[in-house]
């Protein structure tokens, strides 16, 4: 069977239809948008796509040509794109991304709610699974990667059913988003001291002040967008969003049971503190507060 799968892959490869995945050939002038699953990635893709070309709106029909992701576009499709390309991914740190990377980070408690809802919507898993069960068995698990739950929930499998695609998944590799904490840490660890190549943006700031945050991103990516253009991009994205306008931050407060909240905070509380997701109490270090103020001025 595995040989048949490999033959299938070879045929697909010859036709240029195989899914690109993390190992797609990258150019030095590529720019990247990276977000963990459930962190508002499609929203950011739409905003940036509309900012780059406000005359032609990003829709679900053209998003793969405008701001492609690694898990749906083929290698051939990537080769055909005009440069410089803006590429979206859920990946952990990738040293081959030589160009600037915008990293969108979101409160992991909201991420858990978002992924859980997407999974139920996609009906890729049994409806009987509770959110507590999801958080303890999947979300905070660390030994899963692309091909596991992270891929299932995002619907990649659904859209890429097929003999040839499975040959890559089973024996090969599309990518590794890992768990929320490791994804965040890998990027911040590798590029945190390199502000020219990594801009970390909080979902919550993008939600509260989209124009201001988009201006920072535009400057970082060298798009030189005017204030009017930025305002227009936000406006059209709001009106013609490919998906729904993103959820208000803090949905976890109503949708996430206390036990699941505890589990997430005990796994990544120290990270969450430095992103401003946990209150800085008297028992916490002074640098946490300074860190949030200095690194996320849009709050």
């Amino acid at each position, binding site marked *: 069977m595995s040989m048949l799968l*490999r033959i299938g*892959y070879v045929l697909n490869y010859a036709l240029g239809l195989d899914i690109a995945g993390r*190992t797609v050939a990258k150019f030095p002038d590529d720019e990247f948008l990276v977000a963990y699953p459930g962190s508002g990635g499609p929203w950011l893709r739409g905003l940036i796509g509309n900012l780059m070309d406000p005359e032609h709106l990003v829709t679900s029909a053209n998003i793969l040509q405008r701001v492609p992701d690694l898990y749906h576009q083929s290698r051939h499709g990537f080769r055909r794109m005009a440069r410089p390309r803006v590429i979206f991914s859920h990946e952990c740190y990738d040293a081959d991304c030589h160009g600037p990377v915008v990293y969108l980070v979101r409160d992991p408690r909201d991420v858990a709610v978002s992924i859980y809802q997407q999974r139920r919507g996609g009906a890729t898993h049994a409806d009987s699974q509770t959110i507590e069960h999801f958080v303890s068995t999947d979300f905070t698990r660390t030994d899963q990667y692309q091909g596991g739950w992270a891929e299932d929930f995002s619907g990649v499998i659904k859209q890429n059913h097929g003999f040839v695609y499975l040959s890559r998944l089973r024996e090969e590799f599309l990518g590794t988003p890992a768990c929320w*904490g*490791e994804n965040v*840490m*890998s990027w911040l*660890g590798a590029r945190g001291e390199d502000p020219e190549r990594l801009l970390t943006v909080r979902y919550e700031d993008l939600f509260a002040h989209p124009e201001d945050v988009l201006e920072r991103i535009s400057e970082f990516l060298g798009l030189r967008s005017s204030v009017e253009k930025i305002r227009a991009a936000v406006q059209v994205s709001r009106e013609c969003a490919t998906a729904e306008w993103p959820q208000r931050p803090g949905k976890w407060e109503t949708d996430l049971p206390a036990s699941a909240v505890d589990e997430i905070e005990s796994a990544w509380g120290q990270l969450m503190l*430095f992103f401003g997701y946990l209150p800085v109490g008297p028992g916490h270090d*002074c640098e946490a507060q300074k860190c949030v103020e200095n690194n996320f001025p849009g709050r």
Partner: protein
Amino acid sequence: MFLGYVLGRYKPAERAIPMRADDIFLVSFFKSGNTWTRFLLGNLLNPGRPVTFESIERTSPDIYQFQYRDYGRLASPRIIKSHECFDPRYRRVIYIVRDPRDVAVSLYHFLRKIGTIDDTFPLATYASEWFLRGKGSGRTWREHVGSWLLNPRNFPEVAGLEPASRCTGDGLKLDELGACGHGRQFLLLRYEDLLSNPGASLARMSKFLNLDVSAEQISYAVEQSSASRMRGLEQKDRDQWFMTKHTRKDINFVREARAEQWRTALPRESVAKIESQWGRTMQLLGYGLAEHSVEDAVRSECPLPKTTGHIGFS
């Protein structure tokens, strides 16, 4: 090529290798003692069959060279050599780090050996225009180290978030470095500590791998993996081993194997540039700075984490 793929006779792209949960990865940036560590472990695990450059790819395969089909045939736990940045699938990791000033010198000579640069290319230009930008290596030392050393406890020191050093408390201890959270087994080794006491470092690796070995076995493995012996083996196998096969023969792969070469080999301005860009991370690892640079300004406002000069493992 296509037939090779179907038959499994191809080299998977870096990350595309099929993994097992008990795989052990020897990870480092380039020229940081990875090959030596492969020799040490290989000689410890196979005492009757001393490792050579001809056999090393079978005892601890290089992920960039091994063929897909052959990976499946190795017995568990496999020991795999890798230069990859953080990969969450690596569940058991021995990470070797080396002073970047020495890495710059060593990598410069390696790039001369493989013909990427010629003898007229100045070391100072290499250090400032190539090494610091990751040219010739595809990633920088800082990216590699930073991606592997971060965990929730040492955030934001390694991430470099401002203020990057703690204003309160005793600062970061060196054994707090390493992507050891999330159930990963992680052992951090400094090349310099391997050099100063290879037996102790090998004993730590043995303990990490749950190996029941005697002091004699460790001494034997260290002896069989000495720099002079490795140089001799390189001369013998240099036309067989892929790394040396099509390279200049007047430059050895196994060079001086000593610490602090940079003090005499690296121009002062190159040292200053490396320290000004990566000084904070170097200090976290116990590599003292020679040139006073931007670190002074940071130190005056917020004391940098204390370092002991040696990794503080008990």
